[in-house]
């Protein structure tokens, strides 16, 4: 997925003269051609996320569409006030692409984990949040959102689904329909969901746009049974959206995702998934 991101963003810089790229001192090697050929619009400034987001906002006020690429917690949390005030409040468009979803950087520990990304960004009305599950889905979603007039957060993960799906911004994909339950697979959780529910008479909906949440598709395909929500970030982050989808009826909701606690472990991504009960135990 990271390679697809580099290609999409590089193409954007080449083809769209009103765009810019800021690196938080990551991806310099991958973007070396762009940094060399377009030094006025593509730059590696240094390790200052909050200041960089403000700089990007200033450029957005000047008519430039900025894209910032950094590590999840340092964009989401260190620069939170800038995302909130400099972009959302000012109604500016910009793209914030991050690597290190949840505990993808499992060797680096809690300071580099960010299972709270959606929860935090969802507190900023007006932000868009996309979480592609494959490289092709990234390309499609980025193409549809990167100059749509809104600030957009994009969550990249190193752990992707096997097959890309026909996804579109703002729209959930209906993977299958059934009668016993409704299963919501968010982003990179789809493969695990497909395996767990193989042969089961359930509806499976696949979400790669998390803000705004596609309530319409859920309403249309809800079969009256229990709803199972599988998220690659903190469990239950989208629960509010599920309940808001059904203001007129009670729903039973079960949530699977990253445990809501300070994660003090290193280990592998799979071991951390197992700890949260997201996978069978891994030795």
């Amino acid at each position, binding site marked *: 997925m990271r390679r697809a991101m580099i290609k999409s963003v590089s193409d954007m810089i080449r083809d769209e003269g009103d765009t810019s790229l800021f690196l938080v001192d990551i991806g310099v090697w991958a973007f070396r051609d762009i940094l060399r050929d377009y030094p006025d619009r593509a730059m590696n400034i*240094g*390790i200052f996320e909050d200041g960089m987001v403000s700089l990007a906002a200033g450029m957005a006020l000047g008519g430039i569409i900025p894209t910032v690429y950094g590590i999840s917690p340092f964009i989401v949390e260190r620069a939170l006030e800038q995302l909130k005030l400099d972009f959302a409040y000012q109604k500016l468009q910009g793209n914030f692409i991050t690597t290190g979803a949840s505990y993808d950087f499992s060797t680096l520990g809690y*300071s*580099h984990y960010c299972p709270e990304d959606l929860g935090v960004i969802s507190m900023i009305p007006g932000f868009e949040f996309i979480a592609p599950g494959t490289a092709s889905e990234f390309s499609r979603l980025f193409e549809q959102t990167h100059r749509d007039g809104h600030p957009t957060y994009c969550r990249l993960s190193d752990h992707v689904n096997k097959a890309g799906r026909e996804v579109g911004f703002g729209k959930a994909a209906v993977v299958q329909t059934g009668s016993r339950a409704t299963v919501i697979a968010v982003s990179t959780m789809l493969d695990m969901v497909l395996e767990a529910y193989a042969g089961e008479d359930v509806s499976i909906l696949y979400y790669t746009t998390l803000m705004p949440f596609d309530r319409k598709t859920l309403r249309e395909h809800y079969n009256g049974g229990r709803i199972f929500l599988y998220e690659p970030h903190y469990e239950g982050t989208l629960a509010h959206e599920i309940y808001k989808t059904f203001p007129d009826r009670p729903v039973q909701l079960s949530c699977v995702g990253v445990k809501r606690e300070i994660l003090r472990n290193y280990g592998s991504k799979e071991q951390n998934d197992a700890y949260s009960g997201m996978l069978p135990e891994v030795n």
Partner: protein
Amino acid sequence: MNLNDKVKQLKLECLELCVHAGVGHVTSAFSCAEIVTLLYYEIMNISKEARVSGDYDRFIMSKNHGSVITYPILADLGYVSYDEIRTFLDNGSRFGIHSKLGIPSVDFAGGALGIGIGVACGMAYAAKQDNKPYKIFCLVGDGECYEGSVWEAAMFAAQNNLNNLIIIIDRNKMAITDYTENMVALEPLMDKWKAFGFEVREVVDGHDFSQLRQAFANDSSKPICIIANTIKGHGVDFLENNLLMHGCAPTGEKAELALRQIGGDK
């Protein structure tokens, strides 16, 4: 054992941990190996008596990704066992790339750049308020100096005359994937720290114990900033100043070569 031999031993053990785990910030650890070694074995008062009384000198590794160099030190000094540090990065281990709470002598779990120095300033302030004799040593990466919080903390330190605070800048002139002067340039770095109210001492070769020792020799009426010029990945030719090796551990023959180059005939 003199410190030159000691640092070789520590770097070997550090490298072995990272090679075994298949990952680790070896270059960042080797950049500051001599600084950290000198602090633990000579400069800081971490005697048993001081530890018991609570008046031991504190060390904050603000550039926390270099922490793996401290693990062999903690084992050598008896804080933890060698067996335990060899669980480095295992599921459930206390020892990861960034040090975390629960490790003896780690007063603050870091990992995010620009955080540790603020905490160090707060600790120094609290110590002064309580007339405590201990000092706070804080190792800051030069790439970390991009973070605005570094300079916010520096202003506070000078305003409050925190002369019990010693900041050491590991000036290897590299950040994560680029050289600092290719990005927004950090220079003139000494002038910046002076302007922020610090007594600035430059160490031309931050891998030379005698030069480092001299920089730590005298107290000051101001907070001290020691800018130690270092080489990222020091001691292994293919790691030195190699932008592509940040956060990596050598593997296979390269690992063997690295072990030989830092003085281990294995």
